[in-house]
């Protein structure tokens, strides 16, 4: 792709103090603009398609504006159209209940996020503030599992959930994520280690117990990293596909990502229901987009390698 040649160009740009137009800088900005356009344009195309009708899509394939502007696709996806109307507009007519999937996604992502962040914080406290034999060995063992690919544990986990009779239940879907991930513990432990202990030590001299210190001092002081971790975890869980695909096929627990896959495979009337599909993806992406608009800076700044020389 053409961008690979940019590397050199942008580096060649030495700070020049001459007044005339700095063409290198202009060129660099142009490349940034292209990158942003390439990134954002497909999302606009998603919106444009969702606001079109299937019937007029083909004849307006190259038109940048919605073909026959219409909210039918959103209505179809959100179950506000009768099957007859849906079929007339190129939908499958099968009941697709995105409200239900939306509810399921919210339950799945929030329960796993809350559990994972809280229990990981507890463990991180034990790894950073308490002194006990075998602490570093246990921590090392936890960290080592970061290397294990999810598919590797997914098969035995599936068998266990199946044997427990928890297939197609929220319990089965959330349990493997509920208690910890090595990454969450690692992430929080780093912050706890970097936090000043003066207040805690004073509290301890006053006879405060660890439980109180954890709840009243450590957690409030770590609110920012906890929020960042929760945000990242929520987005990750909202987007999770593989595990819910394995254990949550049933409508009652089906999350949006799995629902989208099913929706795509119901190719009605020969051609896919493109407008419905794009409306559905927009609905599914919306919560993450809203979170990102609200907390974008936090997300952006959380990405990096801190502490590496």
């Amino acid at each position, binding site marked *: *792709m053409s961008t690979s040649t940019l590397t050199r160009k942008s580096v060649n740009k030495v700070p020049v103090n001459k007044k005339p137009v700095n063409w290198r800088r202009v060129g660099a900005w142009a*490349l940034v603009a292209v990158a942003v356009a390439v990134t954002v344009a497909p999302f606009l195309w998603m919106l444009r398609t969702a606001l079109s009708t299937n019937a007029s899509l083909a004849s307006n394939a190259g038109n940048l504006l919605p073909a026959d502007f219409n909210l039918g696709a959103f209505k179809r996806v959100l179950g506000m159209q009768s099957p007859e109307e849906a079929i007339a507009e190129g939908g499958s007519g099968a009941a697709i209940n995105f409200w239900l999937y939306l509810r399921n996604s919210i339950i799945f992502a929030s329960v796993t996020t809350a559990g994972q962040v809280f229990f990981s914080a507890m463990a991180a406290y034990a790894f950073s503030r308490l002194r006990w034999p075998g602490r570093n060995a246990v921590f090392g063992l936890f960290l080592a599992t970061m290397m294990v690919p999810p598919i590797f544990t997914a*098969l035995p986990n599936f068998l266990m959930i199946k044997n427990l009779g928890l297939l197609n239940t929220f319990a089965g879907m959330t349990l493997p994520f509920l208690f910890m991930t090595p990454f969450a513990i690692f992430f929080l432990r780093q912050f706890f280690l970097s936090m000043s202990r003066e207040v805690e030590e004073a509290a301890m001299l006053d006879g405060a117990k660890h439980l109180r210190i954890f709840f009243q001092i450590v957690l409030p002081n770590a609110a920012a990293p906890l929020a960042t971790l929760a945000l990242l975890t929520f987005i990750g869980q909202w987007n999770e*596909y593989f595990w819910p*695909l394995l254990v949550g096929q049933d409508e009652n627990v089906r999350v949006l990502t799995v629902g*989208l896959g099913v929706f*795509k495979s119901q190719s009605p009337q020969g051609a896919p229901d493109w407008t419905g599909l794009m409306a559905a*993806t927009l609905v*599914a992406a919306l919560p993450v987009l809203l979170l990102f608009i609200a907390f974008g800076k936090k997300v952006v700044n959380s*990405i990096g390698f801190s502490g590496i020389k």
Partner: protein
Amino acid sequence: MMTTLTKQQQDPAARAGLPKAGKTARKGRLRRLGDLKMALFFIFPAMIGFVLFYLVPTIRGVYLSFTEYSILGDPTWIGIKNYTAMLGDELFWNAMGVTVQYVGLNIGFQTLIALGLALLMHRVAKSTFIRGALLLPFLVANVIVALLWFWMLDYQIGIVNEIINWMGLPRIAFFGSEQWAIPTIAAVNVWRHMGYTALLLFAGLQSIPNHVYEVASLDGASPTRTFWSITMPLLRPVLVLVLVVTVIGSFQVFDTVAVTTGGGPINASRVIQMYIYQKAFGESDFGYASALSVILFLILALVAFVQMKFLKGNESDLD
């Protein structure tokens, strides 16, 4: 989601809590056990999760790989038969080939583009807004990204083929032809990950102190020279970590394949994780699927090890 890699900090035991004001007689025992009781309490939930969903499945996965098991009945021990069967399994080798091809295309382009973007951000565009915009695709689910491109790359009425057609070129069956399926899936994921990877590299670039560049420019080093003798060597540890993380992720590509081609046409995009999935859940061959995932695990460990070793990821030239 792996977002922050932090060097393990030294953690002297001395910092872990105040010495208890205990009686001298029990001091020795106390020192050995420390806060064990409290620690057990705090670590209990995480320990349940670790043992039940990481440790036991890992051991069980290795065990199952030596058995024949079809979910019904009990696993039967068959020794290394699953592994020897793999040697003659054409679909397995095909899956490996397809996966390696995918990883090569995906990582190659993704890293080059991300490096370019990171340098651009570092030099001219530090704004959070631009960084946020470039990060957007990464925050949206794989499935959504896959479906969006599935539509945009549609043979008949997809916008990309409209543009190709308008330029007077023949339409391309991006997901529908054997030769295009893997490059297309790789490109879709380059699009999704390039901004994220660029941000990681950007953070690495920012950690290179300015005075190094100043010295170089005082010495009259050309920009090209500066890039190859300063930027690249100093960025290397971060670059290697980024490569380790992205290559490992890339080997496990599944979502995009599952919702677009499903592994086809014919076997053209049946990546290794898709093959494992089909063996386990399509053919109920859990023993063989487990053996496949043991091999995948070993490959990933090897790849990470080789990258760290030969690219010297944990050494910095900045001293």
